[in-house]
């Protein structure tokens, strides 16, 4: 194996990074966090800061999209006046 490709993060670091990202995504989607989770984010503010820029910019989970209704399926004749 090419030793230059050795990974740089420990499992614990990876776990923290992942959890921070997930919690930030939840907040972005409007979900609630538990008090422990809020505390977790405060504890790892540095990771939060680095992850914030990596969050997707587009809105996520806005619910079902608007859909048009097709009314023009048949002609109706009106009475000639």
């Amino acid at each position, binding site marked *: *194996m*090419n030793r*230059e*490709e*050795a*990974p*740089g*993060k420990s*499992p614990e670091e*990876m*776990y923290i990074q*992942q*959890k921070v990202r*997930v*919690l930030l*995504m*939840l907040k972005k*989607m*409007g*979900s*609630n*966090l*538990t008090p*422990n989770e809020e505390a977790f984010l405060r504890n790892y503010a540095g990771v939060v800061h680095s992850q914030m820029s990596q969050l*997707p910019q587009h809105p*996520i*989970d*806005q*619910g*079902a*999209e*608007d*859909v*048009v*209704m*097709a*009314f*023009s*399926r*048949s*002609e*109706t*004749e*009106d009475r000639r*006046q």
Partner: protein
Amino acid sequence: HVYTSAILGTVSYWACWFNTPLSLHLCSDMEAQYSLTRAQRVRAAMFPETLVEGETALTAHSNPDQPTNVQRLAEPSQLLKTAIVHLINYQDDAELATRAVPELTKLLADEDQVVVNKAALIVNQLTRKEASRRVLMQSPQMVSAVVRAMQNTGDLETARCAASVLHSLSHQREGLLAIFKSGGIPALVRMLSSPMESVLFYAITTLHNLLLHQEGAKMAVRLADGLQRMVPLLKKTNPKFLAITTDCLQLLSYGNQESKLIILANGGPESLVFIMRNHNYEKLLWTTSRVLKVLSVCPSNKPAIVDAGGMQALGQHLTGSSQRLTQNCLWTLRNLSDAATKQEGLDGLLQILVSQLGSDDVNMLTCATGILSNLTCNNARNKALVTQSGGVEALIHAVLRAGEKEDVAEPAVCALRHLTSRHPDAELAQNAVRLHYGIPAITKLLGQPHYWPVVKATVGLIRNLALCPANQAPLRESGTIPRLVNLLLKAHQETQRHGSGAQQTYQDGVRMEEIVEGCTGALHILARDPINRGEIASMQTIPLFVQLLYSYVENIKRVSAGVLCELALDKQCAEMIDAEGASAPLMELLHSPNEGIATYAAAVLFRISEDKSSDYRKRVSVELTHSLFKHDPAAWEMVNIFIQESHSTLTDSRRTRKGGIYVQMKVNGDHSSQARFSVNNNLNFSLILTQNFRRLEI
């Protein structure tokens, strides 16, 4: 013959009444009468005062000192006399025309155009009286001669006379039939290119009468390329002429797709919209709106009308005094609205439609709600404008008045659903629904009898309303949660009854999977409130939500992961979720390409693993890391194959600094045997096996 014998019968009756034999001195006069027409003889006998100069009269002997019985009969007699005089005149005209027709028919075909012109003039004169007109239309040879003269002449005046003749004949069914059988339609269509306005008028009016009353005329006009000649006439300026022309187009295009496409190909939509925008003659606007209504159901014409400014032009006529015009414009706008979601310049129209939501006319309500529903679809500007114009309150009132009229309720609820999401004023709209007492009315729409399109729209609206924290308690208090749960159970049972997989169940045109998704989505947002969360969990919904994680429908997976994520905030619920075996499907969902699904799944796993061992958390982490490889399907496929073939268990995986994959695993369950497998972006891989601390590099 009928009226002639009636006249003669009356004459003999009166002769008996007077009991006056004809005197001898009158006999010589009688000889002179034999050369007169029958009508003249009757006239002379009965009403000598109506004779023209040169005609002699038979007189009855009377005593000037004594009033006659006729005089004594006074008014009724006078009326009868007048009627009979008319009949006599009618007979005159008919006899004259009968004698003249054969000769005139020949003259109309003369080589000398002056002769043809004079003949046409005379025939035109004959059409002025009913009796002679009847004689003309009863002669197929005469009508054919007129048609030929019209289409063959190079003289405009002759053409005008001939067209006028046909126009006169077209007021009776007999005349229409005669024109039709004589090939008059192709000739009249050709006249639509005439430079003479009066010829145009006669031609279009005659064609109009044929289209209205003569069977087979529509097909004949279409075959003669009538549409191609009529559409350019829309550029004329005379309102009455345009009214007839547009009515012709409506008659030809109703129910005939080919005709609609011909109108489109000849620039019809632009010309029709121009008329709507620039004229104010009511009848013209009405006939034009009818053509637009017919064209508005054509998928090809629809965008052309919208692009020509049709929405704005039709919107100009929604507040006038003509009910029929307003209604036609509304129906047309409704038909067009799904193609106009990106149109600009509709502010005025939107405001008028909001005001029309206050109408009691069900047709107006149906159209206004439908148009607003579509125009607010994916259009943030229109949503904001309608919200700021009091649209929320007006739509709530429309929902209340709609009752069981689904054609009003469904679009009204859809419009509210659009207004309450995906635009800057969505929160304003969400609050407005509550402030205008809309929540109970909306919740009621979830009740029986279920009309599924309305139910589907309503659950989507409720989901949006729940986004506003101030709405959570009112929604709960109106009984929304149990209704949603019951609907969800019912819909889910239907999907299960019809089997799983791609087979979908429809009711009223709505898939039950959509109801499952909608109800779960609404409950997801409602679960953001802690009291609502408890109520939802208390209804034994967790097992169902876990089951829904296995759905083949991506959106159902998303909303069920979402609601479980909210419920898992509560420790007890988290344990229940874990007890239902949610971990396995959630682990799978970590790999979903949908960021929302992966996030909710991860969050639930984090929450149910809080009290679990570090091994479990590490496994979650490993699985999460795998989800980072979703952009390297080929590389990950290689890893999977290796793991499978080597009977290994994954113990660690991560992305390398250069973007490749590094995984660590136990081989054959043997802790003393480890493999480190690495693959880079070019799918070059290396494998290091370590057994009993001895390293083998491959």
